[in-house]
């Protein structure tokens, strides 16, 4: 069964066709990368998958369950997590508070009105462990907007991972990182549990070929080819798009 599947997904923004008839299946445990030039509709496609915007047509399913009509938060509770291309943290809250919010999502504890947040020691303990694991303990009490850009990307990834999702969507996790940070973050992605299904948007071909089991190429709202790294490299239209874009 495929972990995540899109059939004939299309999106229309006030008459402009942003996506047309995209179909793809990501089997469980696969690492799939979507590449394509700017404006190809990659992020729009992500927003359809996560439920940020409704589709104009087509069907999306998660482990066989039709989620096309589900709101974003219910998709998240089914095990679909995402990171954001433009950093989208709780910027005035500390890294610790960011993480606590991620950890208590979907728990009934989030509805308790009169108990102190600090009373939930189990939650804090989990948070401490995770911060340790991601080597972010040192910035735990810094507001998210005051840490470096590279650290923000790591926190983003940590938040997405904190609920042990079954399917993880990464929207250009390397964008804007220095060369050293790219090595570090791609190392982190390599180390993610192998059974987790990952769908990732990437701009950089080398990074894509390094991380992907299989690749889809988007161009002007359409999917033009799917294949493994060698097939994509050899595909004439892909070369044309990328060479032409340069």
């Amino acid at each position, binding site marked *: 069964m495929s972990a995540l599947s899109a059939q004939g997904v299309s999106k229309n923004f006030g008459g402009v066709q942003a996506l047309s008839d995209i179909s793809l299946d990501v089997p469980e445990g696969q690492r799939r990368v979507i590449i394509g030039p700017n404006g190809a509709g990659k992020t729009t496609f992500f927003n359809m998958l996560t439920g940020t915007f409704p589709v104009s047509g087509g069907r999306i399913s998660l482990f066989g369950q039709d989620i096309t009509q589900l709101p*974003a*938060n219910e998709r998240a509770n089914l095990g679909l997590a995402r990171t954001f291309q433009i950093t989208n943290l*709780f*910027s*005035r809250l*500390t890294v610790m*508070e960011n993480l606590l919010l*991620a950890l208590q999502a979907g728990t009934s504890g989030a509805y308790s009105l009169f108990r*102190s947040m600090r009373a939930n020691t189990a939650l804090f303990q989990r948070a401490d462990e995770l911060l340790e694991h991601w080597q972010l303990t040192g910035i735990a009490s810094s507001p998210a907007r005051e840490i470096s850009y590279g650290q923000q990307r790591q926190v983003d990834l940590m*938040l997405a991972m904190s609920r042990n999702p079954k399917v993880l969507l990464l929207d250009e996790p390397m964008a804007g990182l220095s060369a050293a940070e790219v090595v570090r973050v791609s190392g982190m992605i390599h180390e993610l549990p192998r059974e987790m299904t990952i769908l990732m948007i990437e701009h950089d071909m080398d990074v894509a070929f390094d991380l992907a089991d299989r690749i889809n190429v988007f161009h002007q709202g359409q999917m033009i080819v799917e294949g493994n790294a060698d097939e994509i490299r050899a595909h004439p239209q892909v070369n044309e798009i990328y060479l032409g874009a340069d």
Partner: protein
Amino acid sequence: MNTGASSHRSIILTVAIGLPLMLALPFVLTPYYLGLVVKMMIFALFAMSLDLLIGYTGMASLGHAAYFGISAYTAGLLALKLGWSFWIAMPAALLLSGVVAVVFGMLALRTRGSYFLMITLALSQLAWGIAFGWRSVTGGDDGLPNVPRPDLSATISLADGTNFYYFVLAFVSIGALLMFRIAASPFGYVLRGIRESETRMLALGYNVWRYKLAVFVIGGLFAGLAGILYVYLNRFVSPDYIHVARSAEVLLMVILGGAGTLAGPAIGAALIVLLENVISGFTERWIMIMGVIYLAVALFAPNGMAGLVRDFRRKRGRK
């Protein structure tokens, strides 16, 4: 949370100094000034209730006076026409303003930003229109005079100024305490998360809409409590309680004090009540002067007094 220990200490300090002071006030102040302090406390409660929406959740309501006024009218009518005891009238008034908050919230929360501003304003003016137009029940423009203050028991009458002062102090303290607890609770952190990024909250699996509706209603209930206290203070209720000018006033209190701090809006409320009292004492054109104060806050203290203090500390820290 990292500053938990120090903020704990400052709360204990505030209560240790503030509470005896507040308890002693009736022995020091004349009835007139005691009444003014009561008004300050009521508006502090009202402003804090709006701060839950604006400062914590990032939802700017321009119609918060609706809940203040609706429960004021309800409490007033029940006391005046049916002679209900306070202990039944208060829950009934809160219930009605809560129900209205649910309905208005469900409509307004379908939108955000400027639409939310307009719709909350428009809906509150609907409530105002009813108070204004339904003369046979609400007295229309003239309002409802001679609302009796309730007796808490056979021996405790609130007609007595000192008793009434302690009565309001008790309710405002309980209300403020509950709101501070809410702000520090997991729910309170969810509100902050919504303020910072709704899309991230959705992506994490939070049912953002439900939390927003919940805090909208909670804010409405505390505003309702303030409204009940206010109708007892004045023994009078009129459409002015619901008017958009009232909603604007409480918004000014929140912004002047510093949104998102609860304590700030409470201080802002006390300050505005005091200012209005002083200014209206020496000129009939006090509305114009208040208008200038709106401009000044917007231009020079958009983050309120709390923001000014922060800036000052930061500057001093740099030196």
